[in-house]
């Protein structure tokens, strides 16, 4: 625990140093592709106190000065599986981006989708010392939170205060300066396997860069593809990537739940490959060009030419109807969405005032996925694309890049986390996940 606190604080210091230098790299380690953007910060405004509590301020305008994407190697389920391969792939992305930006970066903020993330809702209360709530009071109430036993091999990735209550008022964003006696807080804590962070840190270190922050890529995707009122009223961002699908629920502008399903587009590709007896590359091509999820009568006559190079002429020149392809893809897509639904149910998503579902990630490009999702997840489904950021290359405006764009926004304007306050957390008792939305239900 202390260890983590120190590590996170070190990363914060690193981020500050990067801000002072004015350039920072952001790295999205996906299971399909690794992308890297280099951001230049124009002016760091350290006096901006507009939003949130805590010491991390400095919302600043930035622009993208370098970008690179490379195919992932040695990465699966959003985790680095093979250190050597993964390191080489990360190095490729970092090198091309630095070359393009024509600048050397020393700090990188990374995000990944794997590591079996688990959400916890923590609560804490403490007496206000001098009637007026001060920063110390906030630190105290945070350290009074009852941290559940999340396991030895796990590490806290995010721990964000999502709500403050003062006496009988709740839903406060920033209680500092308010009068009251007893201060309550709700903290959303996200843990992942420690090994995943360690592996990632090792790869980054081998590239001579310092890790200035880590984030969950589901969270990053949500930051970039949920619009402001969705973040405020409640929405879930489903980032369907290659090897993992991230689920992130936002409410009142805070992440209150985050999870990942270890299924993604690659599983669909593999199904196609097996079902049609074609190599993975061909299956990928067929999936992206001809794929779909709803068959119509016309699809029976829509014949897809399947090419192969086994040498067997008959086998290499087959025709497959699109209906057949859809029949292969659909069960897997349904499985992914069902899995997402289970997680959302566990999180108590139905209690939120608005149940907007936003689909993003590369596999959300499969035609008809939004229709399928609205059947499985609920009526309000839309496809999401990342926000535009300054001088972002056109190639990065698609849903495949929502996590890297979100990570850029996160790098520029990070959420206050637990470790941004002075004191260390102490206790450990467990609480249920639903606690994260309890305060909302009570106080809407």
């Amino acid at each position, binding site marked *: 625990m202390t260890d983590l606190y120190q590590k996170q604080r070190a990363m914060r210091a690193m981020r500050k140093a990067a801000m002072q230098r004015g350039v920072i790299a952001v790295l999205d380690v996906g299971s*399909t*592709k690794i992308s890297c953007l280099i951001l230049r910060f124009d002016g760091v405004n350290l006096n901006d106190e507009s939003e949130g509590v805590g010491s991390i301020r400095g919302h600043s305008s930035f622009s993208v000065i370098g970008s690179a*994407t*490379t*195919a992932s*190697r040695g990465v699966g389920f959003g985790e680095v599986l093979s250190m050597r391969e993964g390191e*080489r*792939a990360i*190095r*490729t992305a*970092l*090198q091309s981006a*630095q*070359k393009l930006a*024509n*600048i*050397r970066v020393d700090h990188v903020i990374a995000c990944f989708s794997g590591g079996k993330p688990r959400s916890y809702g923590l609560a804490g209360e403490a007496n206000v010392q001098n009637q007026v709530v001060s920063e110390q009071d906030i630190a105290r109430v945070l350290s009074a939170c009852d941290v559940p036993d999340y396991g030895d091999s796990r590490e806290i990735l995010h721990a964000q205060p999502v709500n403050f209550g003062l006496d009988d008022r709740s839903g406060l964003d920033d209680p500092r300066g308010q009068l009251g006696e007893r201060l309550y807080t709700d903290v959303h804590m996200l843990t992942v396997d420690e090994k995943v962070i360690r592996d990632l840190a090792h790869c980054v270190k*081998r*590239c*001579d860069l310092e890790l200035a922050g880590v984030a969950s890529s589901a969270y990053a995707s949500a930051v970039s593809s949920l619009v402001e009122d969705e973040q405020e009223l409640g929405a879930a961002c489903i980032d369907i990537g290659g090897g993992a699908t991230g689920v992130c629920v936002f409410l009142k502008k805070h992440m209150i739940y985050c999870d990942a399903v270890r299924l993604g587009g690659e599983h669909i590709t593999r199904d196609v490959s097996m079902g049609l007896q074609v190599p*993975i*590359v061909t299956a*990928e091509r067929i999936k*992206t060009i001809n794929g779909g999820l709803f068959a119509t009568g016309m699809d029976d006559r829509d014949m897809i030419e399947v090419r192969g190079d086994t040498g067997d002429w008959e086998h290499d020149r087959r025709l497959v109807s699109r209906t057949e392809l859809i029949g292969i893809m659909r069960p897997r897509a349904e499985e992914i969405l069902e899995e997402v639904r289970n997680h959302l149910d566990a999180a108590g998503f139905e209690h939120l005032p608005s149940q907007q579902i936003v689909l993003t990630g*590369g596999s959300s490009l499969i035609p008809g996925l939004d229709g399928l999702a609205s059947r499985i997840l609920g009526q309000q489904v839309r496809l999401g694309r990342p926000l535009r950021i300054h001088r972002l290359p056109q*190639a990065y405006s*698609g849903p*495949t890049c929502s996590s890297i764009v979100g990570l850029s926004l996160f790098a520029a304007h990070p959420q206050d986390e637990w470790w941004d306050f002075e004191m260390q957390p102490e206790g450990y008792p467990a609480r249920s996940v639903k606690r994260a939305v309890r305060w909302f239900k009570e106080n809407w």
Partner: protein
Amino acid sequence: MSQINSDRYAPFDPAPSLWSYRLLRLMLSPFLRRLIFYGIPVLLLIGVGLLNLTNEQRREQVLTAFNDLKMFVTERPEFMVNLMSLKGASVSVMQDIREVVPIDFPVSRFDLDLDHIRQIILGLGPVKDANVRVRSNGVLQVDVVERAPAFLWRRENGLEVLDETGIYVRTGASRLQHRDLPLIAGEGADSQVAQAQQLFEAAKPLRERLRGLVFIGERRWDVVLDNGQRLMLPEKNPVLALERLIAINQAEDLLERSVKVVDFRLQHRPTLQLRRRAMHEFKQTKLMQLGQIND
């Protein structure tokens, strides 16, 4: 995203080797970049230059080459000045100017110091103002404003023509040549020309008889009329005194009489000095009136 799709299953690994990556980062570090792209080339250039210049012969070569180049540019016909055109000056002044301006035409306009030439020309007495410039067709244009002669000043060793501020214009040959100029005399008269001018204005009614003004003892004026009459004016307010005198004259024809000197130095007690004969007659008359002539 086609770019991403196309290399998704790339058959070869495009990853750079660790050392090439490190080299790239080294080359991208700001200090080294500046050193390599600016520092070293500039040092090299300076070094080569200095090495060359240590050789005496080389230095001479460089110098002559430089001079040749300079000549080549400055001696182009577009930059040559062939003649001087004078405007606004009388013939004698023109001659003077041509004499004092030491230019051997043709000359490059880069070698002309126009300001210096102007100062030389301004140094000439009769020149009040001068404007020197090079016209586009290779003519050195000098526009001169001459001083207008306003007074003739008689000094011990001759006549001088002064302008209205009392500055020397030229020497006058004889009074006859400058009959139109009012005459002044006396040491230091040139410093009081403004007052002289006022006096001449005031003396307009006496124009016919006025010969000139004499500055006495560097402090006050005498008005000299023909046949030797003299009006001695006070130091203070001489113009007023003169005007009063003229008023008296107009009323009483004072100056038509045989008065030699009207002494107005003490304003409240003007004194007349009569001519010798008149004095005699005056005495006779007086005596006659007194009946003392026992004729």
